[in-house]
């Protein structure tokens, strides 16, 4: 600790070099942090939803398959099931916008039974339930689109040859980990519109989301549902909400492996950059190091001082890159890029992980230069320059 002032002075003696090294660490950390924040958020969502004991029931063929709406009642009657709703993806276009957001036809009477963590004033819930063309929107998407209660929302069908005209009756909120970018509306309105248009696709529940009475009931419920529909026209595949979330990631290929590979490449490159900085510092200070040794500093102390210097440079980059990324993303509104990103933020966990990673980069980049410094020959060092 008593060496700290000396170490810090040395970090900043060649300000330009240290700062450039720090900044290159910070800048490279930035995309890494984003990737890891994305993964961490997925994990957070998955683990925070676990407490609600939700199970998603899909067509055996996956998301593209259709589940008859009558299945919802049959699922609801299975022992251990508390309640169930359809979640039928509409996939319409809002005005001239090209990007889509989540729009589900569901059962307004049961919706909050399934998603108890979603909060909405009771009068708004009642208004939504009693208006067949009413819809409920998440706070994130509402803010992004500037929607208020009473606003009309026209949706042009893409998958289905029908257009819907919805009215915002309620805005729901929820914890950070809850998806607050959905628009949900009456399944009945959706289905009647389809029947009017005489399409063969009416009566499609999409997926069924259910809640079990307790955590221990989850796997028996999944088993009994699977066998109950096994010999029907549309066999089903139940999975926990967590598995369901993970299956989306899998659709993007081995995202995690890819992210890790990218991260490793970036980290190795950074270690080389920082090692070069430290090697230059050692070379320049050969005489000083010799002096330190002549005065009586031993090699371990010198090794420690240079390692600490190198870690300090890493930390400098880590603090700018890690904490900086966190605050940068709390300032900019990503939902203007894509409404799905509206809930994106960099958790503290990820930010601190970035800082620690940068410190580790500092440590590893300092190993060889510090070892060289510790082994400077006093006699050679003192003969130099003079």
């Amino acid at each position, binding site marked *: 600790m008593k*060496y700290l002032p*000396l170490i810090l002075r040395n970090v900043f003696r060649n300000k330009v070099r240290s700062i450039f090294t720090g900044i290159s660490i910070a800048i490279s950390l930035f995309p890494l942090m984003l990737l890891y924040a994305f993964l961490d958020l997925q994990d957070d969502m998955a683990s925070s939803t676990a407490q609600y004991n939700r199970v998603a029931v899909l067509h055996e063929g996956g998301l593209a398959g259709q589940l008859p709406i009558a299945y919802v009642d049959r699922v609801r009657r299975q022992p251990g099931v508390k309640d169930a709703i359809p979640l039928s993806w509409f996939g319409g276009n809002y005005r001239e916008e090209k990007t889509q957001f989540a729009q589900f036809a569901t059962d307004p009477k049961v919706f909050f039974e399934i998603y108890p963590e979603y909060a909405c004033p009771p009068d708004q819930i009642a208004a939504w339930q009693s208006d067949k063309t009413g819809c409920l929107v998440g706070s994130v998407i509402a803010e992004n689109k500037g929607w208020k209660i009473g606003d009309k929302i026209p949706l042009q069908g893409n998958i289905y040859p029908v257009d819907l005209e919805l009215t915002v009756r309620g805005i729901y909120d929820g914890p950070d980990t809850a998806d607050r970018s959905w628009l949900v509306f009456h399944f009945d309105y959706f289905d009647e519109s389809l029947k009017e248009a005489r399409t063969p696709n009416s009566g499609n529940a999409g997926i069924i989301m259910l809640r079990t009475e307790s955590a221990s009931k989850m796997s028996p419920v999944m088993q009994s549902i699977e066998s109950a529909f096994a010999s029907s026209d549309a066999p089903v595949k139940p999975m926990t909400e967590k598995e369901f979330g993970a299956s989306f990631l899998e659709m993007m290929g081995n995202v995690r492996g890819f992210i890790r590979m990218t991260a490793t490449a970036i980290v190795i490159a950074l270690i080389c950059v920082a090692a070069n900085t430290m090697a230059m510092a050692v070379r320049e200070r050969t005489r000083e190091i010799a002096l330190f040794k002549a*005065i*009586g500093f031993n090699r*371990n102390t010198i090794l420690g001082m240079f390692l600490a210097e190198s870690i300090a440079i890493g930390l400098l980059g880590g603090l700018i890159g890690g904490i900086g990324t966190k605050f940068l993303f709390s300032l900019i509104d990503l939902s203007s890029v894509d409404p799905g990103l509206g809930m994106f933020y960099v958790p503290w966990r990820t930010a601190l992980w970035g800082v620690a990673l940068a410190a580790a980069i500092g440590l590893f980049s300092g190993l060889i230069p510090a070892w060289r410094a510790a082994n400077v020959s006093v*006699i050679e060092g003192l003969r130099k320059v003079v």
Partner: protein
Amino acid sequence: MSDYHDAVVQLLDVTKGFRRDKIEIPVLTNTTLHIPRGDFVAVMGPSGSGKSTLLNLCAGLDRPTTGQVIVNGQNLGQLSEAGLSKWRSQNLGFVFQMYNLMPVLTALENVELPLLLTPLSRSERRKHAAAALRIVGLEDRADHYPRQLSGGQEQRVSIARALANDPVLLLADEPTGNLDAHSAEEVLELMQSLNEQFGTTVVMVTHDPKAARSAKRLLHLEKGTFVQADIEALEASR
């Protein structure tokens, strides 16, 4: 001989050479030397005669090819590298010709440097360092960085650093080599008064006969051995 037992530096039959392309270049040959406690020795000799090598041996920075070096009763050959580091920090003070100070540290912090190796607390270290700066007359420059000091002042800060840990032996390698006459005078007076007031044993390598005059004794190093030389005669021969 009483000073035999109270010798601070003893070289016993020391031979030192450097190997260069398989050829051994002898620097010191079968040299025996005693420097008694409280002595102030000036070492002169032509360039390349081995003056710096002698200091390195006394400091345990280098080891003799054969023979023994005993400083303040410690046979340096018996110490490990780490042991030598520790021993240096407790027994030695160093002053070099130039580039002596850490540029990132103030005068006071430079003087404090060797004290970091002691168990002293921060405030005690500061107090000791300030006292050492006062001895060299630079207490008003405590917060100055080396680049803000003149060459002579830098050298005085080096001396303050060398004496901060209260060394038994002060080794100086051409401490006035880079200074103008006036600054050199100041530095020499300072070393003289350290030697007289605190009884610190001083071994100073110099090329300057005038500098050598401030010493009590002059050793001349030539062709691998020491010759006791007379300072007055040296003066007269000029």
